[in-house]
């Protein structure tokens, strides 16, 4: 159909989009680490389903994996509900155990299973184009593309149909319950999506990098927008960017494609973390500095205003020297605040005396809130 390179990029993009759009809800519901748990424990589902069917291509593997994903969620909740274990500790106990059992089963029966733990963990996208979907002798393209495409469709279908329900359960679970939308049902439905997406994706990118694709693009989008549907679209877009950028990087370095995708997803997040308008580190720092100056100006204005009212003098001019003593600011800080206040026309200065302008009085009144 296409060249293998294009096919790899296509598969990577589909995986990234499928992961990103379910990841949005994990990020918003503070359940990001659940993706880590599920993506590990689905391996046990695959292994057990394989023992039953003896067929690595069987769709039962995906079902087995999805069921195991739900069992993970259930076990975590059960442990947490005994009130003997904190929730984060419950996650950290359940998935290593399920994953360990899977690894033991695989290595004990290695001769019979063509599952390699390294591949499960790390994924190997480069081999995906070799596994073709051939129908009646016609090569229809790589199987992975069909599987992931189907999973993506399921995700899109579910999120579109139940958008309103997902939104309410995410932002106001109590309201949802009152409206008759069961948070539990929506929760488990969402976890099923995470599970099947994790199974489909980890063939391509491995279980740990599923986490990168599910969390990094939505978290990046979260820094850029407040609107849910924009966040979903943006996450998908950023997912594709990570996939394609990752492929280019892997090609250049001749290194792991999945690892490169995760690295690029991380770099994109880092850029947003630093530079996102309004919410990035830089804007926050800038705002803090401005805020400090504003506080100082308002404090200065209020101080002068109070003195006008409490101890009026002719022309309401006050000695700068005295003012500095009252405000107890360092002299350099005091000088720069005075300069700013002069520049903004809040005070007028004559020799060693200052007085509040009408503008300054307004600022003081505003600052006082009366």
């Amino acid at each position, binding site marked *: 159909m296409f060249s293998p390179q294009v096919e790899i990029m296509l598969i990577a993009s589909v995986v990234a989009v499928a992961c990103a759009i379910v990841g949005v809800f994990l990020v918003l519901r503070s359940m990001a680490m659940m993706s880590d748990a599920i993506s590990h424990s689905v391996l046990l589902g695959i292994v057990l389903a394989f023992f039953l069917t003896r067929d690595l291509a069987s769709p039962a593997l995906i079902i087995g994996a999805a069921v195991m994903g739900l069992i993970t969620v259930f076990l975590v909740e059960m442990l947490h509900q005994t009130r003997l274990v904190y929730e984060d500790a419950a996650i950290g106990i359940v998935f290593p155990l399920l994953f360990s059992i899977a690894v033991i089963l695989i290595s004990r029966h290695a001769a019979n299973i063509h599952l390699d733990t390294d591949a499960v963990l790390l994924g190997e996208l480069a081999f995906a184009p070799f596994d073709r979907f051939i129908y009646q002798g016609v090569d229809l393209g790589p199987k992975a593309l069909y599987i992931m495409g189907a999973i993506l469709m399921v995700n899109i279908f579910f999120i579109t149909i139940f958008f309103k329900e997902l939104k309410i359960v995410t932002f106001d679970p109590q309201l949802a319950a009152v409206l008759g939308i069961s948070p539990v049902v929506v929760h488990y439905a969402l976890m099923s999506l995470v599970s099947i997406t994790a199974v489909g994706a980890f063939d391509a990118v491995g279980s740990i990098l599923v986490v990168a694709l599910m969390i990094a693009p939505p978290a990046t989008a979260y820094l850029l927008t407040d609107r849910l549907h924009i966040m979903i679209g943006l996450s998908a877009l950023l997912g594709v960017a990570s996939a394609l950028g990752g492929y280019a990087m892997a090609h250049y370095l001749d290194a792991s494609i999945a690892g490169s995708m995760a690295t690029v997803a991380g770099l994109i997040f880092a850029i947003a973390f630093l530079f996102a308008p309004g919410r990035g580190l830089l804007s926050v720092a800038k*705002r803090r500095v401005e*805020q*400090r100056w504003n*506080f*100082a100006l308002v*404090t200065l204005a*209020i101080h002068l205003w109070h003195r006008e009212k409490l101890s009026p003098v002719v022309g309401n001019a006050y000695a700068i020297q005295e003012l500095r003593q009252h*405000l*107890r600011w360092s002299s350099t800080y005091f000088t720069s605040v005075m300069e700013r206040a002069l520049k903004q026309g809040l005070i007028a200065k004559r020799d060693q005396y200052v007085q509040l302008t009408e503008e300054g009085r307004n600022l003081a009144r505003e*600052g*006082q*809130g009366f």
Partner: protein
Amino acid sequence: MPTNALDVSDLTVAYKEKPVLWDIDLTVPPAVLLAVIGPNGAGKTTLIKSILGLIPTVAGSVRIYGRPYKEQRKQVAYVPQRGTVDWDFPTSVLDVVTMGLYGTLGWLKRPGKKEKKLAMEALEMVAMQDYAHRQISQLSGGQQQRVFLARALVQQAEIYFMDEPFQGVDAMTEKAILRLLKDLRSAGKTVIVVHHDLQTVPEYFDWVTLLNTRLVANGPMEEVFTEANLEKAYGGRFMQLKATARALP
């Protein structure tokens, strides 16, 4: 001139975008039982946390008995809100109270017999000596509050900061705590309490600080706890509160 127990000047605190406390000037004489009151979001907890250096301030200075707070730590005791710690933490009542002595113990030194004895005495003052070896998760809300009070008592401070010590405790504990606070005041200690029940203010306290982001009023109860000031602090909400605040002077 006698030294004030607490002098706060020009204290300004900002959280993210908004100023939470604006230019607070506060003087508190020694040996008073003070209620910090104000509507939700007025910055009551923020006030005592920023005085204690738990929240960074934008501007302002704090003096305890005339000297900077950092030099006076040993004169200060703190009772945080009960909900701020994990009561399932594997530790005993006596152990929690002993933590109040870590400040005087200093680095590396372990609490010994002397500290245990002091902690037991503090527990007796709150009538919790029988619970000394209980695990803290087995306590009721009122008992937890008593343990926190004992931890502050064992510090043998001059000034006490308490964040909602009456929150969610039973009537009997409330009475017991009140008696204890009044005893502290009689012993010349200064007690600063974040409080939210307007009804009990006149009965419990003799000094009031009214707060709503800015300082609305600060002074003796009779002077400050007036309808005009309350309306200033609570605004429109005061009308609704008025019906319940029958205890107004």
